[in-house]
């Protein structure tokens, strides 16, 4: 029997995951995608606590829970909560922790998931905390890359767009440091990767370089990871300037490697032209679909000491 390295754990930040845990998540995702196991969460109650709006993350977590036979309680915004009466997040989540077997939390304040994880013995999954972390999206991205390229080591990835504020990028970068991945960072100066992340990449020996346009990197990479420019972060003049910069069109892909796949955590605004959707490179909707399988794997691993396929040789 293979040891479940995630049982009873929290998923708060990708910086806490080691290679063996990540490999286990990838293997469990592949197994559940190939062979659905509808009773893994039978009798379990999963609290989906979304204090701020979410489409894909919330619905994919709900779908994952239901597909494994679990029950969903929760909310999709904080309008109906006692938090509006002045109750602290700490007290609110303390109460919910008594009702559920596992807590999923999305909150606009950074560190909210950590606070909840410290407070309860129940497993907690961070579904996004401000601009800090979004570990499950990073795992979805990693699984999608592994699935479409059949490897992780030796790949060249371009991370494009908002490298400063994107929590998905920040979470994903931490995982990249565990693999032999070459990074091309494509962003305007105002949205470049923060210094602390550059220091992390240097410390871990990751090869990376900075670029200003997609044309500079498109021939060199196996994965083009696009992100949305968060307009609310910039002033009007900056937004206008960036509107047409870093927009991926079919023409830019003319010299792409045949195995190139384009990913995007979605929602997209205008950074990927719709004509790209019909090229063999577009892979973002498959990536979104994988969200359910990866989240199934996480729920299954956190709540089951043993899983049926763990007895099989790996």
């Amino acid at each position, binding site marked *: 029997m293979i040891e479940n390295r995630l049982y009873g754990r929290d998923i708060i*930040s990708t*910086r806490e995951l080691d290679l063996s845990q990540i490999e286990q998540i990838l293997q469990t995702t592949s197994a559940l995608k190939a062979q659905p196991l509808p009773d893994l969460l039978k009798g379990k109650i999963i609290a989906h606590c979304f204090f701020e709006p979410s489409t894909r993350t919330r619905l994919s977590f709900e779908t994952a829970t239901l597909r494994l036979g679990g029950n969903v309680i929760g909310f999709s915004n904080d309008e109906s909560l006692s938090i509006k009466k002045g109750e*602290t*997040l*700490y007290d609110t989540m303390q109460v919910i922790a008594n009702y559920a077997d596992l807590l999923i939390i999305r*909150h*606009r*304040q*950074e*560190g*909210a998931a*950590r*606070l909840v994880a*410290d407070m309860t013995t129940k497993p907690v999954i961070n579904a996004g*905390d*401000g*601009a*800090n*972390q979004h570990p499950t999206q990073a795992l979805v991205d990693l699984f999608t890359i592994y699935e479409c390229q059949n490897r992780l080591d030796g790949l060249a990835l371009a991370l494009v767009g908002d490298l400063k504020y994107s929590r998905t990028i920040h979470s994903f970068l931490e995982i990249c440091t565990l693999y032999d991945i070459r990074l091309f960072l494509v962003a305007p100066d105002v949205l470049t990767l923060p210094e*602390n992340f550059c*220091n992390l990449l240097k410390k871990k020996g990751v090869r990376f370089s900075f670029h200003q346009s997609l044309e500079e990197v498109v021939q060199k990479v196996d994965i083009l990871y696009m992100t949305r420019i968060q307009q609310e972060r910039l002033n009007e003049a900056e937004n206008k300037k960036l509107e047409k910069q870093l927009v991926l069109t079919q023409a830019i892909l003319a010299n792409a490697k045949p195995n190139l796949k384009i990913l995007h955590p979605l929602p997209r605004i205008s950074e990927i032209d719709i004509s790209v959707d019909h090229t063999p490179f577009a892979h973002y909707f498959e990536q979104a679909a994988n969200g359910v399988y990866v989240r199934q794997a996480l729920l299954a691993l956190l709540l089951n000491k043993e899983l049926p396929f763990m007895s099989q040789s790996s």
Partner: protein
Amino acid sequence: MSKTLSVAAIQNGTVIDHIPAGQAFRIIYLLRLLDKHLQVTVGLNLPSKRSKLKDLMKIKNYILTKDQANEITIFAPTATINVINDFEVTEKIITTLPTSIACIFICPNPVCISRTEPVDSFFYIEEQGKQVFLSCKYCEKTVDRNEIEVRI
């Protein structure tokens, strides 16, 4: 030529010398010296052979613990901390940079959960070359020691 001390000698207590200029007040708050109603004499921007200017602090009738001395190194890695007994140095406290620190600081990130919820702040401390960085356990933001605010 007569030699006069800028800050009067103490008979018993602790002397913290070679504090980088400008850091003395942060150390006072860090060690909660005002709350303890101790007699503290402070010299600011004193001439220093090592670094042009320095701060100096003498705490009467109070011996710092090893942990307190270690905390000082976050702001004053070059400080010397001596225990005084009957006007003589009887012990030089050897310090090491702590790996973490709780309760003392406020996270400078305005959207960090530790600023609004009833929890103690907690920072991991890391030295990179001559720079000291603090990383908030909650929001994971890493800041230079000069950006951190001491809870008053």
